[in-house]
C-alpha cells in the first residue's frame, strides 16, 4: 500500500477537525516468537490519542510499553488489530512504506540517546533532518535552541552530559518537524535534575502543539500529562485524564 493512500474508514472523515485522533490503536496485538517461545507483548489494546495531547504510558517492565510505541512508530507491524496515525492506516505497510512513514511522520527519542559519537550535536541533528530536506544549518540550530543547547552545537556526544545528550536526541527528533513525537523512557538514563530538564523541554514542545507519547517507569512524569495510560501484561489497565496537567517546573520525583 502506498503511504499516501488513505483508508476509507478513517475517523478523521467523520469527526471534527480538532477532534481527529492523532493516533488510534484498534485491538492492536503483538506476539513475538512462536510455540513455546511465544510472548504476547501486547494483547489487543484500544487507544486514541488526540492531536496536541501528551500521553504518558506507565507500567512495570515487560508490560508492553515499548511494543506499543513500536507499533505506533511504524517500527513493527501489529500481529492483529489496526494502527491508524494522522488518519492514515499503517497496519499493512510494507518495510519500505514504513520507512517512508517513519521518515515523514514520527520523531523518536530513545532511552539510550543513540547519538552518533563521531558527529557533533549539530551534525547529529542534521543527519536525521536531512532525510526530509530540512537539514540546513539554521533549522538544525533552531532545534538545538529549542532544547536550550545552541551553545553546545559543536560539541561531540562524549563532551556532553547525559541530559544534554538526551536533549540533542530530542532536537534531532523535532528538527524534521514531525507531527508525532515518541519518547521511550527519555529520562530513564538520567538523574533527577537532568531528567527534569528534559521533562521541561518535552512539555514546552507539547505546548507548542506537538502530540507526544511518552513511555516511562516513573509515575512522576504522569503529573504533566493530559492522559496517563497504565499497562500490565500487554494490556491497558486504566486511563486517567486530566484537563489541567501540572507544570514540569513543579514536578517532584
Amino acid at each position: 500500500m502506498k503511504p499516501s493512500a488513505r483508508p476509507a474508514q478513517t475517523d478523521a472523515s467523520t469527526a471534527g477537525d480538532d477532534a481527529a485522533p492523532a493516533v488510534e490503536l484498534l485491538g492492536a496485538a503483538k506476539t513475538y516468537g512462536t510455540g513455546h517461545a511465544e510472548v504476547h507483548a501486547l494483547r489487543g489494546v484500544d487507544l486514541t490519542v488526540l492531536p496536541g495531547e501528551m500521553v504518558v504510558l506507565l507500567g512495570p517492565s515487560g508490560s508492553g510499553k515499548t511494543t506499543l510505541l513500536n507499533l505506533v512508530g511504524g517500527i513493527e507491524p501489529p500481529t492483529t488489530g489496526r494502527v491508524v496515525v494522522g488518519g492514515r492506516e499503517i497496519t499493512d505497510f510494507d518495510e519500505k512504506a514504513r520507512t517512508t512513514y517513519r521518515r515523514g511522520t514520527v520523531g523518536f527519542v530513545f532511552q539510550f540517546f543513540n547519538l552518533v559519537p563521531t558527529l557533533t550535536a549539530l551534525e547529529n541533528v542534521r543527519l536525521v533532518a536531512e532525510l526530509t530536506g530540512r537539514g540546513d544549518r539554521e533549522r538544525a540550530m533552531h532545534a538545538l535552541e529549542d532544547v536550550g543547547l545552541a551553545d553546545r552545537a559543536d560539541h561531540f556526544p562524549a563532551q556532553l552530559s547525559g541530559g544534554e545528550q538526551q536533549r540533542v536526541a530530542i532536537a534531532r527528533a523535532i528538527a524534521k518537524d514531525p507531527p508525532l513525537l515518541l519518547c521511550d523512557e527519555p529520562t530513564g538514563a538520567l538523574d533527577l535534575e537532568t531528567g527534569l530538564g528534559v521533562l521541561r523541554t518535552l512539555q514546552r514542545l507539547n505546548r507548542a502543539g506537538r502530540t507526544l507519547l511518552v513511555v516511562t517507569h516513573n509515575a512522576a512524569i504522569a503529573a504533566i500529562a493530559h492522559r496517563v495510560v497504565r499497562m500490565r501484561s500487554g494490556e491497558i489497565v486504566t486511563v486517567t485524564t486530566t484537563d489541567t496537567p501540572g507544570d514540569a517546573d513543579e514536578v517532584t520525583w
Partner: protein
Amino acid sequence: MTALTRKLLRDLRRGPAQLLAVVALVALGVALYGASYDAYRNLDASYNAIFDRYHFADLTIVGGDAPAIATEVATIDGVATVATRTVADTPLRLADGKTLTGRVIGLPTTGQPPINQVEVESGSYLDPSRAGGVLAESHLADQADLSEDSTVEIWVGGTWQPLTVLGTVASPEYLWPAASRQDVLPAPGTFGVLFVPESLARQVLGPEPAEATQTGPNEVTVYYTPAARDDASELDARLAALAQRHGAADVVPRDDQPSNATLALDIKGFEELAIMFPVLFLTAAGLATYVVLTRRVARDRAIIGMMRASGFRRRTVLGHYLTTGLLCGLAGSVIGVLLGIAAAGTVTRLYIEAIGVPLTLVSIRASTVLGGLAFGLVAGALSALAPALAASRVPPAEAMRGVVPSTRGGRGLLARLERWIPATRRLPAAAWFVLRGPTRHPRRTLYTEIGVVLALVLILVSWGMLDTVRATMARQYDQVQRQDAQLVLDRPADAAILDDLAGVPGVAAVEPITERPITLEAGSKTYATALLGLRPDTTMHTFLDPDGGTRPLPATGVLLGTALREDLGVNSGDRVSLRFLDGSPADLTVAGFVDEPLGTFAYVSLDQVRALDATARSTGALVRFDPGTDAEAMRRALTSRPGVVAYEDTEALRRAAEDFMGLFYVFVGVMLLFGGMLAFTVLFATMSVNVAERSVEIATLRASGVSQRRLARLVTAENLLLVTVGILPGLGLGWLATDAYLSAFNTDLMRFATDIRPGTFAWSALAVVVVALLAQLPGLRALGRLDLGTVVRERAG
C-alpha cells in the same frame, strides 16, 4: 557534505589501526601483483625488443646439408631471412692456463650477420684484415676478465691456436649463457662463447672423419616475418620436416633455444607470483575487512537501529558500510598500484642487471594499473558485502532496546561441549575465559585460522622452495654425479691414458665417458639431448629409479630421463630411434627410466655406443679424488697430464649453482617478510577486534580486581590457542602449495621433488607464533587503557 558522509569519513578515523591493517593488506596484494606482473611483462618486452633489434633466429637447424636447406627454406612463405653459419665446440684455454668448454660461432668478418646479430659492448667488431681476431661473449669476458687485446687459445686440429680478442659482445642467443638445453646452469669458468670469423669456425669444425667430404656451414638460422611469428608453431613444423628431409639432426624453435628457454622459466616464475601473491594477500585483506566491518556493525547496531527508525532506507545503510570497504579497497589499491609501479621497475632493472641483458624496457601499463585498482576495489567491496548486508538488516527496533549483548548465549560450541562432557564444568574460570573467546564467534575464529594458514603457506612456500632446491642440488651432486672432475681428452680414452691418470696422486678412480649429441625420436615426437656412454659397472654415476631405488646401467638398451616418458610417449620395452648429429640413425630398446634433478639424458653402456656408431670414441674421463685432496692441486696435476685439454670441476659446478641461489635467498627473504606482514596484519585485525568487543567484560574483570597482567596472560593464552589450531593445517597446506608452485617449474631441464626439512616446519610455525605475539601487543596495551567508566559511557553515546 551531508552529515551522513561526514559520519562515514569520521567513522573511518575511529579505530583507524584496524582499517589501516586492511588497507595495508590490499596495498601489499596489489603492489605484489603489479610488481610481479609488470616485471614479467617488462622482461618479456625487453627480451622481445632485443630479439627484434638483433634479429634473434626464430628457428635454428643443426646439421644436415645446410646450404641446401637454406636455399629451400628461403622460398617458403613467412620466412623473412635465412642465413648459414658454423658452430663448433672445442676446448678453450685462457691466459692463466685454465681450460673450459669453448664454443666458436662463425660470423662474417665484413659486417653483422642478417640473423643473430651481436651488440659490441667494448672494442670493435671483427675485421677482415685480422684473421686471428675474435669477439668474446660478455659472460665469458666477465668471468675470464677478457677485454680488447686479451689473448685466448682454442684447440684446433690437434694444437692450441692463439687468438686475439677484438671486442666483447652481447648476443641474443646467450643472454643466459647456457651451453645447451641440457646444461642450463653452466658454472662460470666451465663454458664460454667466442664469435670468430666464419672461416676459423669451419676450421675448428674440421672435416667429419666418417664422410670427410664437407666442411661447410653446419647451422641454418631462420628469421620469420612478424605475421608468421604470431603463428610460429605451424611454420616451425613445416621447416622441421623440410630440414629432416635434408638430414638435419636437430631443429630448435625460438622457444626451445637454451638461453630463451631458461629465461622463460624465470618469466614464468614471475607470472606465477603475479597470481599467487594477490590471491594470498587479497584473501587475507578480504578476511580482515570482514572481521573488522562485522565488528563495526555489531558495535553500531543501536545507531543503525536509530537510523532505520528515523527513516533511513535499507540501501542507504547498505551503501554506508559497503563504502567503508570500498574506500579501504580504494586506498589500498591506489597505494598498491604506486608501490607496484616502483617495485616493478626496480625488480626488472635489478634482474636484468644481474643477468646482464643489454636492453631494458620498463613501462607503466594501463592494464596493470586498472587491474590492480580493480583487484583492490573488488576485494574491498566483496568482503564488505556480508557485513553491510547484515547492517542493512538490523531492525529499527534495535534502537529501542539499548545495549544488547551481541553474543548468542548458550547456543555456542562450548555450551554443547559442556553438555556433552560434564567434566568440563569443573574447568577453572580462566580456562573458560580462554576457550570462550574463540567459540563465541565461530566465523571470526575460522577467519583468524585462515589468516594463520595463509601466512604459513607464504612462509613455507618460500622456505620450502629453498629447502627443495638445496635438496635437489644435493641429489644431483652427491647422489647422481659421483665424479669430482670431468676431463676432455685429445685422444681416445684407452687403457694407457686412463692408467696414466689413475697414477696421479690423489686420484681414487678414473672411468671413460662418451658424450654425443643426439636426437631421440619416437613416432612423430623428437627430443634433442646427449647420449652418455658409461661402463656398465660405473661408480661415477648412480641411476635413480623413479620409484626411489637405484638400478645398474643395463648391458643392452637405453636408460632415459623420466621426462621422456611423456615428452616422447614411450615406456619400458618400447623402441626409440636415435639420430647422431651427422644424421646416422639407430634403434634402441628403452630399458627403463631414471629420475634425475638436472637435465634429461640418455644413458647406455660404452659397448653399445661403439656398436651404434663405429666412429665414436671416448674422449672424456671421469675422475674421483681421494677424500681430503685439494681440488685446485688436483686441477693443476691433471691438466698437466698429456692428452688432457679441458677440465670441469664438479665442486665449481656446485658452487656456481649455489651462487646462483644467492638471488634466491634474497627472494626468499622478501617472501618471508611478506608472509610475516600478512600474518601480522590479519592477526592484528582479528585480535584487536576480539579485545575491543569484550571491552566491557574485560573492564569488569579489571574493576573486580583481576590484575592487568593476569588478564594479559589470559588473552595471550587465548590468542596462542587460536594460532596453534591453525598451525597444522597451515603446514599441510603450505607443503601442498610448495609442491604445486614448484611443479609449475618442473620441466625436462629441472625437476624438483618437494623436500622440506622438519626444522623448516618447526621454524615456520615458531615464526607465526612470534608474529602473533607481536600482533596482539597493541590489543594488550589497549587492555591497560580500558576502564569501566569510559566503556559504559561510550556505549551510552
